[in-house]
């Protein structure tokens, strides 16, 4: 099979501004910066420091020297942590944004679905939106007309075709949007995490459809997802991206296993994962349930996490604890943040401090593993100390009447009473 996508030394950089809100620039800022630029040279006579600080800029490489080939009919999965560069890669491939360096050669028409229902107008009916969305995705009117019935059948929204889509349930919305994209006549289909929404039944149907277009019509599919199960089912090969680089490509099972391995935490002490973000604070010890180890077991009866942090402060500070629970697919499943949620921010005096808080977990957690990120923050202002991915919490899980444990290995399912 011939190579349809050839990517050579592809790189993309963004400039991040540290001061002020990034995103867009206001004219006033540009003028202000110009003025500051001249004042910048004006130094304080005594300290010899610039009088006014200018915004710091930093280059960030979202993609860094990426090389790969995709052959016709392949279904390539792209996995990686949040912010690894997956979506940027797809954006460059779909010509939404230009690469900074490198080149890629694409043979055949490319259709990308980076978001479900882009361009859908809430006021228009389902029927009208099929035509509009089709046109946005690059279909011709005649093409849409000829496939209209199939699209409607696939989306299962026949009854509501003449209802404005703002009255649709989110499931119906996604179904309709995906159905339009599924009938695109393009040689290459690029899909970003779009199946995250929609019910399991429909997800299965979509995966089946993608599999079919590739298997029987020889089309090439590039598929980004955090849903490892979906990748396993669909893809013939997988690419693992991290920090803008391709770490590994190859066999689906191997790459996925490698990816999941990087998600696990090696046993050690929690404090080893410490990252100081503010030099006014020093943490000397951290324990969970009186243990310094980062491997925590939670039995169904005991459902508390007592976190104790001791250290020293260079000045008086308002601080709060924040703990995030991630499942093995990097999905945030639970958040503990009394500072944000209830305004429980305590004032700690200069010198030694001790933070002692108990997190009560729902007492019906299923069998699963969580990775914890523990932060001491001044809510909405800054993170003072962070322990990213520092603890593995292993929930034993509740036992059912049958005596069997209910495993929730594919998602961090919370069974609330």
């Amino acid at each position, binding site marked *: 099979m011939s190579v349809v996508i050839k990517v050579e030394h592809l790189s993309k950089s963004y400039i991040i501004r540290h001061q002020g809100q990034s*995103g867009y620039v206001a004219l006033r800022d*540009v003028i202000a910066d110009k003025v500051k630029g001249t004042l910048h040279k004006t130094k304080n006579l005594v300290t010899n420091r610039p009088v006014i600080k200018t915004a710091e800029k930093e280059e960030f490489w979202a993609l860094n020297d990426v090389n790969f080939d995709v052959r016709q009919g392949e279904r390539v999965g792209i996995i990686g942590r949040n912010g690894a560069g997956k979506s940027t890669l797809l954006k460059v491939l779909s*010509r*939404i944004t230009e690469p900074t*360096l490198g*080149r890629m050669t694409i043979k055949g028409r490319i259709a990308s679905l980076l978001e479900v229902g882009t361009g859908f*107008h809430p006021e228009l009916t389902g029927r009208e939106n099929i035509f*509009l969305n089709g046109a946005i995705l*690059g279909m*011709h009117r005649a093409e849409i007309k000829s496939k209209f019935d199939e699209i409607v059948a696939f989306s299962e929204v026949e009854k509501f075709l003449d209802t404005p889509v703002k009255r649709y349930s989110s499931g119906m919305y996604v179904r309709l949007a995906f159905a339009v994209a599924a009938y695109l006549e393009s040689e290459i289909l690029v899909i970003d995490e779009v199946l995250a929404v929609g019910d399991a039944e429909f997800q299965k149907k979509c995966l089946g459809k993608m599999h079919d277009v590739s298997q029987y019509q020889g089309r090439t599919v590039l598929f980004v997802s955090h849903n490892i199960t979906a990748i396993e089912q669909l893809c013939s090969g997988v690419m693992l991206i991290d920090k803008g680089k391709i770490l590994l490509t190859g066999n689906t099972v191997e790459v996925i296993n490698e990816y999941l391995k990087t998600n696990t935490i090696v046993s050690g002490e929690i404090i080893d994962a410490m990252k100081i973000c503010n030099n006014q604070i020093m943490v000397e010890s951290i324990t969970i349930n009186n243990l310094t180890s980062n491997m925590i077991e939670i039995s169904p009866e005991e459902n508390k996490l007592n976190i104790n942090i001791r250290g020293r402060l260079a000045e008086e500070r308002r601080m709060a604890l924040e703990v995030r629970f991630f499942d093995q697919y990097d999905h945030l499943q639970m958040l503990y943040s009394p500072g944000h949620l209830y305004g429980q921010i305590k004032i700690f005096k200069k010198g030694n401090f001790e933070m002692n808080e108990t997190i009560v977990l729902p007492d019906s957690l299923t069998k699963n593993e969580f990775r914890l990120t523990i932060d001491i923050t001044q809510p909405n202002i800054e993170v003072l100390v962070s322990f990213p991915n520092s603890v593995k919490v292993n929930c034993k899980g509740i036992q059912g009447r049958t005596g069997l444990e209910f495993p929730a290995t594919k998602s961090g399912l919370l069974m609330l009473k």
Partner: protein
Amino acid sequence: MTEQPNEIELIIEPNRLKKNYWNDLWRFRELFLFLAWRDILVRYKQTIIGLAWSLIRPLLTMIVFTVIFGRLAKLPSEGVPYPILVYAGMLPWQFFSTSFSEASNSLLANSNMLTKIYFPRLIIPASAVIVNFVDFLISFIILIGLMIWYHYVPSWTILYLPLFLVLALLTAMGAGLYVAALNVKYRDFKYIVPFVVQFGLYVSPVGFSSNVVPEKWRLLYSINPMVGVIDGFRWSIIGGNSQIYLPGLMLSIGLIIFLLIFGIWYFRKMEKTFADII
């Protein structure tokens, strides 16, 4: 299944997008129509009187202007009923001002499309202008109504009308493209545009004929490109009664062409960064 003998090969490199730009623009012509169609459909959804809004707004403005400039200020009417004089100036102005402000906001309004889908970005402001063209045609009905009411027969000069219409369209397009691109980067223009439009209404000969302006200032007055457009428009409707001021018109046309070329150039220059900075 769709094996094409001559497969399209696309090369993506920094600064390469330019090459097939105009081809792509042609390929996406249907999208252009669909976007215009969407905006027209959506425009008066969930309104009670719907399309009548495009009739009521110009009609009311015309009445106010006639009362203020015709009755109270008693400005000369060049031998035609004052409502017709005002309306003939208001049509192109309204077309220009709404197209201009909608085109300049169009990229922001469709920002989700910009960041998720590829297509020549020129389509978005262009379709915003076209939507207003439909409104213009509807408002034109009132002019016909006024002519019937006052038993006014337009002269042969009305044949020039399409020419001035195109000029109004190009002005809106040129200015709209430029400001749309600026608006993506500097949101300040969200506040500047309404001001320009409001201000422009008073410095353009909308409520009065530009014959009111002293002869020696007329060329200077024509630096506002809409002066040439509105004068021409009025001339082609009122005909022999009003004289067209040729040097001014030429200046306006020159400025409009410059504005258009500059607008397209700037838009194309900024376009590739839209998805990153919007």
